[in-house]
């Protein structure tokens, strides 16, 4: 009906800046600004991390003795269930996708906000609602069947299970909406000149994650809706006596929960791809390989779910394709690892705190990934499923991977968000505490698992009789787990003091080249007064900055600021 006689006036569309929000509620509580929402996700995620971490410490205290008397066994079951649930859905997803993705992705593509800011705000507020529902289950008996809540046991455990299902459905809706938002944002709101292959790699990672967020999380909602109906209305989806099947739940649950682990790790990969070039002062190796491998991992991630179900009674002929596909998914991941190592090779490396976390990530994530390949092999998995080997594996990739990369991103982008630098000494101390703690806690688990220590057991008395060293190693793990607590505590302290009295950061303390470093720290609410024009990829440190129409004209060859360098600034630009 509406025929375009004149070409569409892009100038008018892109230059739309809405008026500033007024009042405390609109600015900080119900804000539609992606940066404020990112801060909200960050605070919420960190609070839940403290809660989930406390549950973990209670677990470690129970495991101090083989026949632990620290907790009732039923309470222990609730502890590991809630620890897993909180960490997976209320910490990892809000922190990694919600806070980093929301804060940085729109800035990196030169946009003023996401595509649907109000929906973004709704996505955030569903997280505290979900937490409320989940924690209210403590009043009626928290769920105690593990974060996977398999039926029939999750149906027999009381009302806590139904509250769990409801709570995670709510988180799922939040995640799905974020995925939708980010996909539309990245497709439609990139700055002029920013083609797909000129996008920063963190944006590629966020895009791949958003695909998973949108499509996989709905499958979780379906699984948990079915579970909820089974728990509350006795609908026999999973009751074998009435034609249902417990295996059906496992299929429906893992069809989401495997892509979920890629939701945790893909943004983490993106963070690493941003940090390594900046602190090696060298262009990223294999940009297209890294970008497309993110997509490959997102797509392949949908095809491997049954590797969590090898001993559950699925047909043997079905185990083999899942095994093969799981091996295959190691390939795009390996491509990234080698590309990162090639990025570091020959670079002028500066070990700031984010760089420490990023390089350590390569080590710990590779280690965790390799133990994953061990588990992908069906005969190995039939032996190791349900043992501490699995626990060691996934904590390496999640804590040593996603969480480590999140901390790297935190140290890297904190100056952008707040305009202050975090204290380097405290940061480095926290880094060492974290990785020493990680190794001490999770490395022995591999050995204990191979020797046969089962997971989710409140007492390992029988195992300790056969393997007396188990007591020593469990106590060893418990001691080192407190190192990680100290590390997170240090990070919190660092953040508090930096916000009040940290050194001023300026626009670009690290001398990085992506668009978010071209605006002030913290950015104004509208991000860019003029939408920049992008001419090339951001990672070539020997070329001038590939942008036109920036608000402030920066140094064409950005270098780290004096506050960051230990020594005075060199007169010759780096890379020239």
């Amino acid at each position, binding site marked *: 009906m509406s025929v375009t006689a004149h070409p569409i*006036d892009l100038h008018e569309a892109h230059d739309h800046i809405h008026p500033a929000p007024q009042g405390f509620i609109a600015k900080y509580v119900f804000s539609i600004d992606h940066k404020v929402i990112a801060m909200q996700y960050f605070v919420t995620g960190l609070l839940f991390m403290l809660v989930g971490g406390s549950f973990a410490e209670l677990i470690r205290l129970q495991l101090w003795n083989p026949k632990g008397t620290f907790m009732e066994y039923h309470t222990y079951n609730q502890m590991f269930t809630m620890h897993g649930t909180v960490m997976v859905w209320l910490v990892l997803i809000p922190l990694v996708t919600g806070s980093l993705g929301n804060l940085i992705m729109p800035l990196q593509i030169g946009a003023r906000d996401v*595509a649907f800011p109000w929906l973004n705000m709704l996505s955030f507020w569903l997280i505290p609602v979900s937490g409320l529902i989940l924690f209210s289950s403590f009043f009626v008996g928290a769920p105690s069947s593990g974060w996977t809540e398999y039926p029939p046991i999750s149906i027999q455990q009381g009302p806590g299970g139904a509250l769990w299902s409801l709570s995670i459905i709510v988180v799922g809706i939040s995640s799905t909406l974020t995925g939708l938002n980010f996909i539309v944002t990245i497709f439609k709101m990139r700055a002029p000149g920013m083609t797909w292959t000129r996008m920063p790699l963190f944006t590629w990672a966020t895009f791949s994650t958003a695909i998973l967020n949108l*499509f996989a999380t*709905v*499958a979780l909602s379906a699984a948990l809706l079915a579970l909820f*109906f089974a728990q509350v209305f006795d609908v*026999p989806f999973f009751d074998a006596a009435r034609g249902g099947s417990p295996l059906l739940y496992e299929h429906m649950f893992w069809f989401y929960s495997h892509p979920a682990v890629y939701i945790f790790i893909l943004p983490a990969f993106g963070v690493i791809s941003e940090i390594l070039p900046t602190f090696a002062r060298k262009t990223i190796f294999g940009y297209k390989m890294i970008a497309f491998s993110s997509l490959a991992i997102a797509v392949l991630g949908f095809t491997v779910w049954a590797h969590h179900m090898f001993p559950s009674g699925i047909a043997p002929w079905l185990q083999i394709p899942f095994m093969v596909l799981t091996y295959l998914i190691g390939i795009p991941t390996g491509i990234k690892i080698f590309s990162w190592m090639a990025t570091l090779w020959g670079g002028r490396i500066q070990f700031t705190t984010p760089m420490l976390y990023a390089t350590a990530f390569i080590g710990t994530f590779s280690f965790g990934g390799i133990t994953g390949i061990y588990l992908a092999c069906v005969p190995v998995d039939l032996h190791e499923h349900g043992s501490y080997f699995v626990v060691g594996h996934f904590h390496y990739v999640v804590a040593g991977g996603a969480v480590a990369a999140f901390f790297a991103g935190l140290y890297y982008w904190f100056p952008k968000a707040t305009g202050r630098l975090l204290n380097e000494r405290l940061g480095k101390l926290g880094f060492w505490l974290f990785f020493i703690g990680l190794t001490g806690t999770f490395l022995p688990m591999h050995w204990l698992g191979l020797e046969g220590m089962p997971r989710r057991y409140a007492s390992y008395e029988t195992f300790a009789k056969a393997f007396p060293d188990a007591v020593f190693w469990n106590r060893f793990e418990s001691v080192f787990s407190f190192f990680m607590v100290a590390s997170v505590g240090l990070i919190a302290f660092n953040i508090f003091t930096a916000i009040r009295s940290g050194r001023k950061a300026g626009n670009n303390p690290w001398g990085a080249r992506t668009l978010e470093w071209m605006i002030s720290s913290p950015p104004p609410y509208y991000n860019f007064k003029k939408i920049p024009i992008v001419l090339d990829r951001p990672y070539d440190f020997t070329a001038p900055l590939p942008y036109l129409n920036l608000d402030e004209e920066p140094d064409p060859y950005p270098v780290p600021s004096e506050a960051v360098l230990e020594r005075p600034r060199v007169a010759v630009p780096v890379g020239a």
Partner: protein
Amino acid sequence: MAVESTFGQPSPLLERAAVEARYHNVDALYEETRDMRLFGFILFLLADCVLFSSFIFAYLFLRASAPTWPPVVNGTQIGRLDVAFGALNSIVLFGSGVTMHFALESWKNLKTRAFNVWIVTTTLLGIAFLLGQAHEYTSAPAGLTWSGNAFGATYFTLTGLHGFHVFAGVCYLIVLTIQANRGVYTGSKYFGLTAGTLYWHFVDVIWVLLFVLFYLW
């Protein structure tokens, strides 16, 4: 061309539509956001497909692993669903899809009276479908209950989920009718109507699948 709303009063928004049509002015900001909203809405429909696919997978899985279908309960096999009534109810819903299409076409041609006739017909047909479903639920074959067996579990959950989507659609259509008559949409800016039509078609098409899976297979 007379620029009047349904109730014969001059509508400033419809007047603006006439001006835009005559001078080919395009509101760039609107076009840009409409583009994004449409893309987002299609993504939402695709995600909804995943939701239904998950439950359809559950149905196929349980049916494949059942010794007989429909299952045997207390010694007697549950009867099959009423294909005749199901076919009738289905065509009511598909008819409403066609009437919704006509509603949108009428709006695009600024025929507000025709638009109102078509969208109200769509709404009434949608409500008729829901009443038909209610009748199906209350006259279900003996033994077919939500908590009785896998057949009841999957049938009532899937058709219930679909029925919930139809109900939400009916509510949305009512809101659209009111908003259109209040002049929120113009001849060139009517994304809400486009979205409503796509959603209604989507709900229709899901029902084709459910009808085949539960009634005919």
